């Protein structure tokens, strides 16, 4: 099944992305570039209070303003429920600063802004619950009647016998960690254009990682059939797990369009972007691990407490993901997990880059590193002793058909000079190891995990590949073209990828849980094989051989038996299409994991980070990061490196810089200026080691590289900082003022 690299003509060779020239010349369109005849501008009227009772809403002045074409409040949209029983607009209480109260649409931006300001809402402010502690305090007001004790969601599970495991342990270590609210900071702000001029048809343009789930949720909330909603994804300016469920503005734009009978565009303003984005809130982690005298993990316990903010949409998935994570990394006999989501009056929680796992990995990496040191073990040896290996079946029933984790750890530490440096550095210089694993697809987290693909073969030798998988920049469309080209013996240049229109493109759950290369890749491979089978009839007759002997490669077809006699692929296609039977060649492919639930393959990685710390400013400089990642097979190696680079940036950014500063529910830094991320000159040297374990179920052995590296970067840098400081680090981001405090240089929070 697995093919040697030399046998592959297209897969594994550097291929510039197919949409690169368009993106480089300004031809690529994004949602904000869409201009439709008669299009209006929509604005949302948002609550200025973290918690308040609405006494009255008066829209008469807004409605009377010339140029205003639609005004909506709960009164007009009472039946529209989004997320989990959440009315689209508030009518009784507002629960966070930014909560939707009303919306307007007008002929231009200025009129819409004026109209929004003319909506008069009378509030009775109530004391907010701005923190987890306030929400869980005795006597705290209950924000949602159904969430007793302000507990929005709770999940707990034991696997194996954790009590016995801890009972038998020679050493038990317990640590607690905190990560703070942060924001995805996509290059492209949240935006939507909705056209519901005709009642039977709603067309929505928006950046997304999953057109299918947006289509379904918009249809369900607005009382339409799925097919009545057409989801158009042009380009998506960054995803980072944050664009995986429709947000209020999608529904609002649709309703405004219906009322006005004209298309409506809503684009988040700079500070609104921080509200609409809904990236993660504060999370508290308690980890407890018991090991035997040899340092083998017997039992592990994790207790996670999330500030889920004002509402729950799909956030509970984070408990499923974090509960399973330990089992993808270590061989553990017994685990205990508890995850609780607490309602506060903050912006609702949603995923930041790393999907809850990268954030979990911050403390987990520090905890395991500290445990290793407590045992007198080098962290490298501790990980190698406990890590999952190929052929292992975890307590969760996951079978690891391929696993290059050991190779990643060995190669990354060797290249970084770990043995030479660890424990032998000058003060305020540190080195740290982070390891991680990441699912390629996650059936069961979402109900299904399906991808389909079509390929149309033309008589000039060109092909059109139809996929429902969005490309948020990870170059997934080019990867799909590479897979199809490999199977059909074509060149990537022969293939056009069509995507982003639910009327045309086949079903695909989308580009999240790192399922694109694995799931859609398998569907594309199946579609290309289907098309090839249709060409094989002609080719076998012309080459006078059996179909099984045919080789499609380099725009030619030959028989294994007589490789010197080659027929151009174009001729085979032409002769098939123009045969007496007139066989049109159209390949269909489908992939759905054969498992009931869970994941077929995991990527694995190890990273070594080196840092230095300036004792006067507390600024941490990341000097070098060595990234080793087992991607199964690199479909497009330079693009794989680019994925590693971006995740080193984002991981470093989250560990050291990023925090949505909140005070009584108010975002204090809602701008790209005040929300700190690394600039180009702050980036370390990044070295890439691509490990290929050739997964038996992945397309040509491929797994994923879309989110695996970041879950290694976060603990690698955290451990390097702890190593440099020589004191425990417990909070992310490790901002300079916290470093100074850890160094005993300064007290409170700096200004």
């Amino acid at each position, binding site marked *: 099944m697995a093919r040697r690299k030399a046998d592959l003509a297209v897969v594994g060779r550097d291929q510039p992305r197919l949409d690169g020239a368009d993106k480089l010349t300004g031809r690529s369109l994004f949602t904000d570039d869409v201009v439709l005849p008669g299009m209006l501008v929509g604005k949302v009227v948002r609550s200025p209070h973290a918690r308040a009772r609405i006494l009255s809403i008066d829209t008469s002045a807004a409605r009377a303003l010339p140029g205003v074409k639609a005004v909506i409040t709960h009164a007009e949209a009472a039946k529209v429920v989004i997320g989990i029983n959440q009315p689209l607009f508030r009518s009784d209480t507002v629960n966070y600063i930014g909560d939707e109260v009303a919306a307007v649409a007008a002929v231009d931006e200025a009129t819409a802004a004026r109209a929004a300001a003319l909506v008069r809402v009378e509030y009775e402010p109530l004391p907010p619950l701005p923190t987890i502690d306030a929400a869980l305090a005795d006597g705290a007001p209950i924000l949602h009647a159904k969430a007793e004790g302000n507990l929005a969601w709770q999940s707990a599970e034991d696997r194996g016998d954790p009590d016995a495991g801890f009972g038998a342990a020679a050493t038990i270590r317990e640590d607690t960690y905190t990560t703070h609210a942060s924001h995805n900071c996509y*290059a492209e702000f949240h935006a939507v254009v909705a056209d519901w001029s005709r009642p039977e048809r709603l067309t929505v343009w928006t950046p997304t990682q999953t057109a299918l789930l947006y289509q379904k949720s918009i249809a369900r909330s607005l009382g339409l059939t799925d097919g009545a909603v057409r989801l158009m994804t042009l380009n998506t300016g960054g995803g980072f797990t944050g664009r995986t469920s429709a947000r209020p503005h999608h529904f609002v734009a649709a309703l405004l369009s219906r009322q006005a009978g004209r298309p409506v565009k809503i684009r988040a303003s*700079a500070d609104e972007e921080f509200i609409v984005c809904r990236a993660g809130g504060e999370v508290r982690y308690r980890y407890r691990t018991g090991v035997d005298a040899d340092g083998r993990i017997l039992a592990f316990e994790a207790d996670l407490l999330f500030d889920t903010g004002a509402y729950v949409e799909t956030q509970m998935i984070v408990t499923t993901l974090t509960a399973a994570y330990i089992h993808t990394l270590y061989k553990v006999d017994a685990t205990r997990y508890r995850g609780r989501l607490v309602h506060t009056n903050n912006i609702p929680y949603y995923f930041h880059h790393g999907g809850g796992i990268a954030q979990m990995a911050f403390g987990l990496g520090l905890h395991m590193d500290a445990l290793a040191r407590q045992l007198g073990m080098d962290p490298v040896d501790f990980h190698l002793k406990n890590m999952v290996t190929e052929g292992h079946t975890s307590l969760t029933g996951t079978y690891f058909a391929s696993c290059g984790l050991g190779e990643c750890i060995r190669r990354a530490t060797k290249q970084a000079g770990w043995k030479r440096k660890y424990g032998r550095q000058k003060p305020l210089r540190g080195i740290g190891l982070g390891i991680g694993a990441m699912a390629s697809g996650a059936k069961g987290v979402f109900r299904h995990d399906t991808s389909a693909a079509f390929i149309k073969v033309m008589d000039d030798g060109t092909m059109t590949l139809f996929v429902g998988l969005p490309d948020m920049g990870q*170059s997934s469309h080019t990867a799909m073209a590479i897979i199809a080209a490999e199977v059909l013996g074509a060149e990537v240049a022969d293939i056009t990828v069509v995507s982003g229109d639910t009327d045309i493109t086949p079903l695909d759950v989308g580009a999240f849980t790192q399922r694109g290369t694995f799931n859609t890749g398998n569907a594309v491979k199946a579609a290309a094989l289907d098309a090839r089978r249709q060409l094989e009839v002609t080719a076998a007759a012309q080459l006078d051989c059996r179909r099984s002997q045919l080789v499609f490669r380099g725009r030619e077809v030959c028989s294994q038996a007589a490789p010197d006699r080659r027929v151009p692929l174009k001729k085979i296609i032409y002769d098939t299409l123009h045969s007496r039977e007139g066989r049109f060649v159209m390949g269909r492919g489908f992939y759905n994991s054969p498992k009931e639930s869970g994941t077929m393959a995991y990527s694995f990685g190890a990273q070594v980070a080196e840092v230095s710390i300036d004792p006067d400013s507390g600024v941490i400089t990341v000097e070098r990061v060595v990234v080793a990642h087992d991607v199964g097979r690199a479909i497009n190696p330079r693009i794989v490196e*680019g994925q590693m680079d971006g995740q080193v940036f984002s991981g470093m950014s989250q560990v050291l810089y990023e925090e949505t500063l909140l005070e009584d529910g108010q975002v204090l830094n809602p*701008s790209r200026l005040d929300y700190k991320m690394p600039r*180009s000159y702050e*980036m370390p040297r990044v070295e890439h080691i691509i490990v290929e374990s050739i997964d038996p179920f992945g397309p040509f052995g491929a797994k994923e590289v879309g989110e695996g590296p970041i879950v290694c970067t976060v603990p690698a840098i955290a451990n390097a900082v702890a190593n440099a400081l020589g004191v425990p680090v417990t909070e992310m981001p490790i901002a300079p003022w916290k470093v100074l405090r850890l160094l005993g240089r300064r007290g409170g929070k700096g200004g």
Partner: protein
Amino acid sequence: MTHRQFITLTVNGDRREVVVTPEMLLLDVLRDGFGLTGTKRGCTSGACGVCTVQGDDGRAVLSCLSLAIQWDGRSVTTIEGVAGPEGLHPVQQAFLEFGAVQCGYCTPGLVMTVKALLDRTPAADAAAIDEALAGAICRCTGHIKVKEAARQAVLRLQAAAQEQAHGPAQG
């Protein structure tokens, strides 16, 4: 109430008269007036760099921080004006080959930033590239392949200049 005025603006060599109000941004005129949507609307506060264009003095300009009326009688190059009839500009070509493009939203701004740097400083070193890119944010690439592409573009432009001065190198 609003003071409207005509300005004459040349964009990518096309000279046009456009009506502007005092608060209108160069970004608005380029996108809405000229229909050149390659210049992206980002933070509109000068912090992300996606709206970068090149002014007539060769410098990179944040079109979200520049009022349109300031550009009366002047000229601007946008991303749509960078590639020539013979194909991509060396900066664009290097971005394509060295994997510096991901989601593409900040790509036009990054290309304009690097082009403006190299037009004025053909031998820009790594520090100069870092400084020029300091106004950009790109979560996708982490700037790493962008910097590599910029360095490659410097080498290629230098080789091209040398070839022009001395003729092709004899092999």
